[in-house]
């Protein structure tokens, strides 16, 4: 299996804060890789560094065999990388359909407007937002906005999808729905890197998991290995609720 994304000793600083320290991992094509870690560990920063929002202070990022370190987000989008935002960023004054069309128009496939419209409708049905297509994006509730983030990313038909806490704030039924959606996306051949706090979900869907703590990669392995990894449990000790969720996954 070929490696789609390679992150090699990536470092990122914000002033005096060391947000990422020499993070390295490989993501093989077709897998779901889970990314977990306590709040403030640097997970979102790692996403931002991978997709070009931030330039890394050191290290190298290779995507589809090409060195893309320091490339702009639109360059990576056109190469087939799409993402969702932890803090949703809807284009408020555009309709839901138009939001999704942007993904299809300007992403990896660079579709003309009328084709993008068809793709948008298809993707909106897939994530269950078709009834809202003509509404302004600003008028959606938070769960719907999360789905919109997802739809926009999917409409680009990416090779790699970065999902930043798409389950946060959803109720159990919505989580189940979203997990099914994610598995379906993977079955379509899309490689996924996902940040998640809902342990049960991430343990279930991930092929492998990596763990960040204070900007360092402290563990990598199968969900079972991670759930029983002493260092990971210690990292979560500051957060008893998360530690408990993690323990529950040990069988």
């Amino acid at each position: 299996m070929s490696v789609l994304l390679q992150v090699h000793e990536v470092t990122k600083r914000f002033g005096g804060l060391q947000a990422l320290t020499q993070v390295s991992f490989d993501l093989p094509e077709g897998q779901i890789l889970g990314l977990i870690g306590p709040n403030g560990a640097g997970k979102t920063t790692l996403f931002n560094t991978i997709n070009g929002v931030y330039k890394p202070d050191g290290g190298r990022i290779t995507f589809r065999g090409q060195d893309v370190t320091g490339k702009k987000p639109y360059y990576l989008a056109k190469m087939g990388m799409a993402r969702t935002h932890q803090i949703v960023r809807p284009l408020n004054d555009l309709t839901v359909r138009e939001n999704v069309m942007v993904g299809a128009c300007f992403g990896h496939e660079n579709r003309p407007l009328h084709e993008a419209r068809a793709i948008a409708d298809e993707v909106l049905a897939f994530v269950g937002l078709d009834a809202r297509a003509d509404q302004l994006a600003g008028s959606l509730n938070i769960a719907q906005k999360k789905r919109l983030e997802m739809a926009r990313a999917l409409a680009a038909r990416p090779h790699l999808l970065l999902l930043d806490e798409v389950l946060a704030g959803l109720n159990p039924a919505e989580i189940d729905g979203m997990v099914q959606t994610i598995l379906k996306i993977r079955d379509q051949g899309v490689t996924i890197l996902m940040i998640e706090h809902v342990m049960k979900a991430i343990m279930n869907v991930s092929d492998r998991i990596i763990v960040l703590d204070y900007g360092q990669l402290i563990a990598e392995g199968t969900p079972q290995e991670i759930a029983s990894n002493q260092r990971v449990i210690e990292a979560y000790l500051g957060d008893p609720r998360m530690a408990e969720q993690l323990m529950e996954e040990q069988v």
Partner: protein
Amino acid sequence: MKQWLHPGFWITFVIVLALGLAPIVTQNASIREVMFTILLAISMAVSLNIILGYTGYVSFGHVVFFGLGGYLGMYLIDSWKASLPLAVLGGGAIAALLALALGASILRLRGAYFALATIGINEAARTFVANFEPFGGPTGIELHFSVYRDYGGPAQALWIAYYAVVGITLFAIVFSYLIKTSKFGLGLMSIREDEDAAEVMGIVTPRAKTLAFVFSAVLPGMLGVLFFFKNGNVEPGDAFRLHFSIETLVMIMLGGQGTLLGPVLGALGYQRLRGLLLTSDVKIGTLPLKDFQLVISGILLLIIVLFIPAGLVGWLRRRFAPLRRVLA
């Protein structure tokens, strides 16, 4: 192609066409003078709307393109004996080139910083032209009376300039609507809504913004030539009046930024109001009311920004959903 069936386009187009035809049908020179000013305001507002309304970048530099285009056109006519159409094209071209050069540098600035930079550019352009000998330095360029002979005399030349402005304004409507309903326009509106998200979705923002700036600059460059050709002379103080940019901005805000019809109605409304102020003999203290035109546009802007930031058409579209099918 379906977008051309939208009534919002035709409503706007027919309004402008009717305004443009009024003096032609009546062959009335004083109505023509009023309409010249109104159509000029409309096409300035419609073109500024491309960068301000669609892309979300507030520019106080719109008059720079008007002034510089006007200057180059006058120079071409005066020194090179160029024909009016050629001068108009030259004015559009120089404005586009300036926008291209500026776009690469100042469009990296966001929000208030960009707006401030455009004010600086206005001042820089005025100073440059006032010291540029080929453009006549501080005294500017005055056309010889004989220039108008080629156009059948001054009276006929005024009509020709008017026809050209009608044509440009109609073109502005088509052009603006074409952008609004295109893929490129979708990219611009994404930038307006959230520039960082737009980049993440693959929009090459530097290129899109620069192109939007160039598109918004071409028509002012052409209009400047027609305006000063009709005037007979151009001076630095006339060509780069900051308040002309501000008034254009107020027109857009009044009618509805980012809509097709908004800048047209805004320009029409604002010019009507201005006309009323100019002809009234009301005095505030010892000053005639007409001197308060800018004060009033300032107050107007404040009220709009505070209470109806979407402008008239934007507010209507939001308040009454069915109107979205009728107004563009």
